[in-house]
């Protein structure tokens, strides 16, 4: 079966900085695929390239059979209706309450009667455990609750694929556990394809079927969680164990400390 997302020889530069230097990868239907790597390696940029929000400098990004960077707005939007995205901040619309935020895609894309919209929204809110919070405004929600509401909104049109941008960042252990469980259960119960961008090692390893590790614009490791855990690469071990120094140095490149201190003496 053809992968849902096929990326080939992807090059992308931001300013003078090369973000991707010819990466190729596939995302298969029904799997939880994770992109891991240190901060600033372009994981979120990769999601934006898959979502068609950015255009590659070279190479191709094929999503649901369409080269997403070469389609008109109508086709782009029809592809996007098949995918949901959970932003790191939740990105809820601040002038709408929880119920209206979740109802937003339905109101924009369907002509469903109000009663059906209500039922669908309550169903999705129930699945993330926030049916009781439907009247709250986004400013009244905690970070974890906002992300759960955003998740309900992302699945309300029953997409085939969901992209999660740093879903675990800044959450307490209980909320983190809740989000892990939700991602896992939604993936299984709705037959979704999930793409997770994260640098939270334990959580990601616990739910991912396949992981790509990105660093310095290239895929440095890939495989299932067991393969990665047993990798002999020094870089991989440093990343997985969270060691401050190693192949990725603690110090930003600079001249020798002693000579720096003696400047002007």
């Amino acid at each position, binding site marked *: 079966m053809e992968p849902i997302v096929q990326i080939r020889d992807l090059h992308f530069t931001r300013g003078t900085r090369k973000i991707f230097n010819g990466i190729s990868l596939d995302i298969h239907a029904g799997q939880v695929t994770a992109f891991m790597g240190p901060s600033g390696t372009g994981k979120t940029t990769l999601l934006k390239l898959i979502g068609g929000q950015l255009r590659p400098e070279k190479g191709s990004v094929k999503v649901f059979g369409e080269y997403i960077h070469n389609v008109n*707005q109508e086709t782009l939007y029809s592809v*996007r209706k098949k995918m949901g*995205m959970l*932003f790191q901040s939740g*990105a809820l619309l601040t002038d709408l309450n929880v119920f209206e935020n979740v109802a*937003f895609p339905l109101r924009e894309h369907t002509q469903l009667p109000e009663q059906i919209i209500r039922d669908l929204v309550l169903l999705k809110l129930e699945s993330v455990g926030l049916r009781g919070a439907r009247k709250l405004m986004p400013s009244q929600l905690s970070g974890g609750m906002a992300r759960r509401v955003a998740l309900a909104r992302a699945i309300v049109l029953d997409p085939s694929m969901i992209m999660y941008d740093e879903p675990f960042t800044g959450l307490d252990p209980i909320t983190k556990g809740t989000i892990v469980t939700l991602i896992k259960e939604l993936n299984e119960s709705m037959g979704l394809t999930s793409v997770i961008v994260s640098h939270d090692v334990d959580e990601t390893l616990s739910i991912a079927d396949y992981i790509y590790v990105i660093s310095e614009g290239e895929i440095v490791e890939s495989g299932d969680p067991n393969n990665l855990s047993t990798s002999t690469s020094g870089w991989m071990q440093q990343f997985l164990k969270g060691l401050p120094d190693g192949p990725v140095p603690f110090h930003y490149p600079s001249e020798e400390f002693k000579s720096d201190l003696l400047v002007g003496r």
Partner: protein
Amino acid sequence: MITSALQNIGARALGVFESFGSASIFFAKIIAAVPRALTRPRLIVKEIYSVGVLSLTIIVVSGLFVGMVLGLQGYVTLVDFGAEESLGVVVAMTLVRELGPVVTALLFAGRAGSALAAEIGLMKATEQLSSMEMMAVDPIRRIITPRFIGGFISVPLLTAIFTAVGILGGRFVGVGMLGIDEGSYWSQMQANVDLIDDVANGMIKGVVFAVACVWIALYKGYSAIPTAEGISLATTHTVVNSALAVLGLDFVLTALMFGDL
């Protein structure tokens, strides 16, 4: 040295043209989205409330004081020529032709334009616009265009209110405090202010200023750098650029409508 100075000037000029080109494309997208936005009047009414109704206080209070000052200044000047009975015409002409549209637009840019730029800029910074894009909802159609239409409708109405309240302010000072005959105040105004030449032209100015102010505010917000500093710059630029655009356009429109240039 000279080469680098010339390069800087060239780069700045290119930047200005690029920015104007991108603002023009943005404007064209808004206009293209107007027909679909009109099918959702509830969104437009919400924006008329937000940028129009909520600006009423500042418009009414400012209009009243501007009219009162005009009444006082007009009286002081006219009384020397024994023409104080013409105060109504002076106040009305000044407000209808110039101060009504110009001051309303300047106040609108300060009160609602800056708020629009900050709101859109913050929506960008908090990824709300990106999330809409990812939900296959065009932010220009859903967020920008209703605000544009709301401003387009509100500014001419606010101009009319500002002018009407200003005329009442002039009457309060001229008739109520300085003893000018009330009949003269109103009848001279009625006889000399023309519906087409004065009132209609004043309202055309209001419409043109509305387009300029709302376009600038929405564009500055939409193109803001999504940081606190970027949003602060966007709001500042909105007010400054709107004020300059209004004053510049006012000269052009006045020359076309009333001048013999």
